[in-house]
């Protein structure tokens, strides 16, 4: 099947649970379309040869105008058959949009022409990504310049990476090894070089790898920035504060002055820092200045990691961590 005997592969490696499920759907589609194509091709060839023009036959023996019954049949039957791949594909897509609550978050920034990854412990890597086997990993993605797309064929996973917005994607690797990582959205001159590899490691090996590169965690860097930028003068978290408290905010629904209710996900936090006026929390004045241009994309991710880390003393079991992010939808909403 994968063509080892040929010296080159005909089928990509599978390294995630999703990959098996996508391949199953792929083979279903291959069988369905293969059978129909074969039937059509056979009929065309058989009819063309069997009913070829014979000497003396100026016109066809049959001049039928059609058959409503047949027309209905070949309209309705494909329509019904299509329900299967639609529902199946949609089901997998929706599942792939919702990361499990215990997923490990790794940030990724795309820029012309490299991928910069950062783990929660502050470990950085460029054009390579180390992840643990058997644990859900959620990638929080953004771009410093143009649109890129993070594509890992072995996981059957792809997500566009946009400037000025966070997108997320998740996977759970189930096979150790090195796999391709590509940029699949054209991004300029060295687009075809913008890639590297994902290394799936045994959990213990991953822990050792993390320990080697350990530095200050993202949240702790974010906490320092929070002080330096003076965020804490308003977001004080006590009765004197002039801005909403941030403890336990992440993942919670927020009521806005314009009546909308949005979820405080990472993209909301990012937007509230760079464009605070676009979403005002009910009960507060629009007094926050924009930090656009004052913080880099890296620093933004650190601030967001810090705010995320502010857990209330007794954490309540919120569903929101696991909620899908619909940035585009939220923008259009309201």
């Amino acid at each position, binding site marked *: 099947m994968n063509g080892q005997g040929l*010296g080159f592969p*005909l*089928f*990509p490696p599978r390294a995630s649970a999703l990959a098996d499920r*996508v391949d199953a*759907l*792929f083979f279903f*589609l291959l069988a*369905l*379309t293969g059978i*129909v194509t074969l039937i*059509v091709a056979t009929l*065309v060839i058989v*009819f063309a040869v069997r*009913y*070829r023009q014979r000497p003396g036959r*100026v*016109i*066809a023996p*049959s*001049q039928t*105008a*059609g058959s409503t019954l*047949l*027309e209905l049949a*070949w309209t309705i039957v*494909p*329509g019904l058959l*299509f329900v299967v*791949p*639609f529902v199946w*594909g*949609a089901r997998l*897509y*929706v599942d*792939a*949009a919702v990361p499990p609550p215990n997923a490990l978050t790794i940030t990724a920034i795309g820029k012309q022409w490299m991928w910069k990854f950062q783990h929660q412990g502050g470990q950085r890597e460029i054009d390579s990504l180390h992840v643990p086997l058997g644990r859900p990993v959620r990638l929080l993605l953004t771009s410093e310049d*143009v*649109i890129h*797309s993070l*594509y890992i*064929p072995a996981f059957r*996973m*792809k997500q*566009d990476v*946009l*400037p000025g917005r966070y997108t997320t994607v998740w996977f759970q690797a189930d096979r150790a090894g090195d796999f*391709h990582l590509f*940029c*699949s*959205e*054209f991004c*300029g*001159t060295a*687009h*075809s070089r913008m890639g590297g590899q994902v290394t799936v490691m045994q959990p213990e090996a991953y822990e050792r790898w993390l320990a080697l590169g350990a530095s200050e965690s993202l949240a702790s860097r974010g906490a320092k920035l929070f002080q330096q930028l003076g965020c804490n003068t308003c977001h004080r978290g006590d009765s004197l504060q002039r801005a909403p408290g941030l403890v336990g905010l992440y993942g919670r629904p927020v009521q806005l002055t314009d009546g909308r209710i949005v979820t405080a996900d990472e993209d909301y936090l990012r937007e509230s820092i760079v464009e605070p006026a676009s979403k005002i929390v009910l009960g507060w004045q629009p007094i926050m200045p924009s930090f656009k241009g004052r913080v880099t994309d890296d620093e933004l991710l650190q601030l967001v990691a810090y705010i995320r880390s502010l857990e209330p003393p007794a954490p309540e079991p919120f569903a929101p961590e696991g909620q*899908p992010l*619909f940035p*585009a939808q939220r*923008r259009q909403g309201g």
Partner: protein
Amino acid sequence: MIVATVALERPHEETYLSVGTTARSWLLTTDHKRIGILYMVSITLMFLVGGVAATFMRITLLSPGGGVVAMETYNKLFTIHGVIMVWFFLIPSIPSVLGNFVLPMMLGARDVAFPRLNLASWYIFVAGSLFLLWTVVTGGVDTGWTFYTPYSTQYATSHVVSTTLGVFIVGFSSILTGLNFIVTTHRMRAPGLTWFRLPLFVWSLYATSLILVLATPVLGITLILVTLERWLGIGIFDPALGGDPLLFQHLFWFYSHPAVYIMILPGMGVISELIPTFSRKRLFGYTFVAGASIAIAVLGFLVWGHHMFTAGMSTHAALVFSMLSYLVAIPSAIKVFNWTATLYRGAVSFETPMLYAIGFIGLFTTGGMTGLFLASLAVDVHVTDTYFVIAHFHYIMVGGMVTAYMGGLHYWWPKISGRMYPENLGRLAAMTIFLGFNLTFFPQYILGYLGMPRRYAGYPPEFHVLNVLSTAGASILAVGYALPLAYLLWSLRYGERASANPWGGTTLEWTTSSPPPEHNFAHTPIVTHGPYDYVRGPQGDQRG
């Protein structure tokens, strides 16, 4: 039981070709037939430029490390290949060449409704083409034919503005041709030629024209916004300026998905002519095939989001677009089934146009079937922006549309030139193209599922063999396309003289001489029955 129309030998009568032979008589003509030929010459030249770009791409991809051309050059090659083949070849191909030539004759008319506007369309096309060629000569453009923002507006350093302006200009040529065809079909039909007596090629051109008129302005506006953002920095698409890059994708695909149907509906129309003619049998399910064209034109406007399943669009929107994408596949399937049923109990012969028609059914079905993979959300996530998509749309646009164009060109060549092409060479070329095409593009499906992204100047070594196969196929394909270019030109002088109706066709263009007189018909035909009626013979009385 008459089929063969008596070829009216009128050696002393002037044909549309003999009324004037000066350059002026061609450049100032308002004859739809001559304008069709002007288009044929122009798009053939553009096809050669686009083909040269493709040739260099396939040569570069012969080795994993690329290296034949710099990455930057490779990016310009695929951009120019895409821009030219989409807007300067495929979109005008069947409508502006074969449509211009045949449509008024199929309607029993002397010309299109607005002959001078028709000539203006061609001049606009030429102006846009020169703009684009100038861009190529002065350094090219590297955004891809999709001009995604903010790359195209803020980051690309190549000639984005002159390219978008070239495409903008050529858009008006599309709009005016569409408008002309719509009005012509409404107003210029011969007495008795009711809507349900129209040949299916007319129905498909009508559906295409609706899309041309409704969708092209959206493209024009979008390209102007890109230009304004690039020149003046107004924030429409660039998030750094407060814009939204996904807005560009929505606007672009709102045009460009319907444009895919501009690039296949006319091809389906040609096939609907070829199959009955070479089966000597009435087309099966005429009303359903005609209705399917309109259904495709309408539904085609509702599926643009399927280009954006990984773009960061909402999950709910993705679900709706996926479902609608399955829906739009149904009318295409209806057509394939009806063509197949037409062959049943026919009297099938295998002249060159029919070989192209049979090839079309196979290639279009394969391309359409792989569209079902792309409509399925989770599979699309894996294969979008890979060679799977490249293979899919080349099966539709080259395997489908170009094959249909070649079929139509051979079918109407006797009418256009008054000469027959060499039949055996024609068959050989059709089979060469079919083989070369499959060898070029089938490996790309496998490459795509393996995960090779599109628009890559180099690739990991395990993709090497399949890329070499693809390049080998492309060289066979090139021979296949060069053959007709040579023998059709040869036939202009040395081809056997064609009779009025060499194939026993039943539509009105076969009731006039080959080549036709300047005003098509000696007398306006009166139509008493539908097309493809092999019992009653050609539409229109022959009282002359």
